[in-house]
């Protein structure tokens, strides 16, 4: 059976920064069969081991630059070494790790959610709330399409 993984990440104490985390948490609560979901603060190397068991993975993240509108899954390629002092990896780096360490990597996409409010606050701005709504619909459609009727 094919395995689908959604990894949502961000800092939930910094407003919209946590939108990826919130999306993953919401998906997790749905407990869909055939979907492995994890909501994390940041991407760390051991996630590569989990990814190596998946066929497809979507990374969900907040983004403050220009984001493609409407929201869309963008294909990801392995690559991009981690920045110098960061304790976190990029999705591309995790893909590379998965390949290098475990000999396989899932097909991967990222879903970037526009975020504006990075204040010290728990909860999403109106813009990120609306974007989360769009993202949930998109991800559920993706799962239905890829994993059969979940």
């Amino acid at each position, binding site marked *: 059976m094919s395995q689908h993984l959604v990894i949502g990440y961000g800092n939930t104490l910094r407003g919209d920064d946590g939108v990826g985390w919130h999306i993953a948490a919401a998906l997790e609560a749905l407990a869909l069969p055939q979907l492995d979901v994890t909501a994390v603060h940041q991407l760390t190397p051991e996630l590569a081991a989990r990814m190596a068991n998946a066929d497809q993975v979507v990374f969900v993240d907040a983004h403050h630059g220009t984001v493609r509108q409407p929201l869309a899954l963008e294909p990801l390629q392995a690559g991009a070494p981690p920045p110098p002092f*960061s*304790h976190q990896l990029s999705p591309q780096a995790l893909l590379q790790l998965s390949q290098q360490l475990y000999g396989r990597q899932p097909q991967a996409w990222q879903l970037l959610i526009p975020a504006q409010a990075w204040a010290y606050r728990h909860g999403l701005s109106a813009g990120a709330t609306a974007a989360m709504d769009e993202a949930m619909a998109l991800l559920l459609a993706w799962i239905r399409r890829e994993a059969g009727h979940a």
Partner: protein
Amino acid sequence: MHPESTPRRITIDPVTRIEGHAKITIQLDGSGAVATARFHVTEYRGFERFCEGRPFTEMAAITARICGICPVSHLLAAAKTGDKILGVAIPPAAEHLRRLMNLAQLTQSHALSFFHLSSPDFLLGWNSDPTQRNLFGLIAANPDLARAGIRLRQFGQGVIEALGGRKIHAAWAVPGGVRSPLSPALRDQIRAGLPEAFTIAERGLSLFKQLLDTQLQEELEVFGNFPSLFLGLVGKDGSWEHYGGRRSGGIRVMASDGSLVADGLQEDDVEQFLAEAVEPWSYLKFPYIQALGPQAGSYRVGPLARLNLCDCIGSERADQELQELRQRGGRVVTASFLYHLARLIEILACLEQMEQLLDDPLITATHVRARAGVNCHEAMGVSEAPRGTLFHHYWVDANGLIAKVNLIIATGQNNSAMNRTITQIARHYLADGNLSEAMLNRVEAGIRCFDPCLSCSTHAAGQMPLLVQLIGPDGTLLEERRRG
């Protein structure tokens, strides 16, 4: 030099702190030599907003969310501060369990630092292409090492989940103790993971020691080797300590000649003992020992400090390694590069102490929580986080609602030492007044000795490239490099 460039001064304001860059500035003096180098760090502030007006019982769950790398450290510091607000001594079994969790946290955090972040620094040469001097280059050179590091992280994570559960570990340690005891079955499961973890730790140690013996001599001298004070917890008998509690011998401050500046200091006295300097160029505060002033009173915390401060570790294999470390670097090791070795020795110490704890029948005892009301209105709690001593300081109203919070974090306490380290490196390797790759590689590696943690900012900031600026004596920007 590039006199024609029109430099743009980047100031760190709250916006660029989030969307800007991690930054290093290297300041030249009139003769073209390096005057100072500074690492500009983001700091978690504004955090008080989540806490003010909340019941102090929520602080563990709130503060554990600050950091994705060491949530357990905040969890324990918050719970210990909560114990003191209640005014209780927690059940001995609860202390055992908290210790066990902290040991697991130290192990997995050190594993990330050594096996994934830092090992490229010593396994791949300094002059190698920066696009190769990273985790991927490491894996290409030594895939087993990176996989072993992941196994060690998974082991530590497994222990934390066995204790706190997958979902709720954010609130497992509570004021008065812990939420749930450890079942014999889970104890045995943890125990079963130890042999592999020991093997990985030993492997890291022998690899690193061999490199130290053969090729890393210069790093020992140049990467932040200077006398300074060291601060951290010690055990009652002067042994290595990471939690405090019943075994605590208080906080010890030691000079590099081995003399004690303070010993048996209680955390409650810390705020009188320390002062925090504020520098216009950094959001991070610089704690120092008040009586000695900002220069002489600056100190280092973390793995190397803990090993320097203790008289012994208290477990066989780690103590052997400690002896070797002291043969290599002296009774008080001043070479910051040996923070890496200290991390490996601490992993070994953690595993040995976990083994001891698991063998103690008390570890599965079921009375793990003391209950009480609000009995103190101000309390300071301390624990040793992977990066060093962590203080939580709370003020609560008569009913236990948080009025004020202050956190003193390890990365802040090592701030002065990081700057001294990169200054030393920049002085040594700056050639012809230019930023060379070989020098920048080393400057970065100098900071990594301290494993500073920026993950309590937004992850967007954590993903930022590093900006290195060379500044002339008159303040003009001479050269700028973007890395990562």
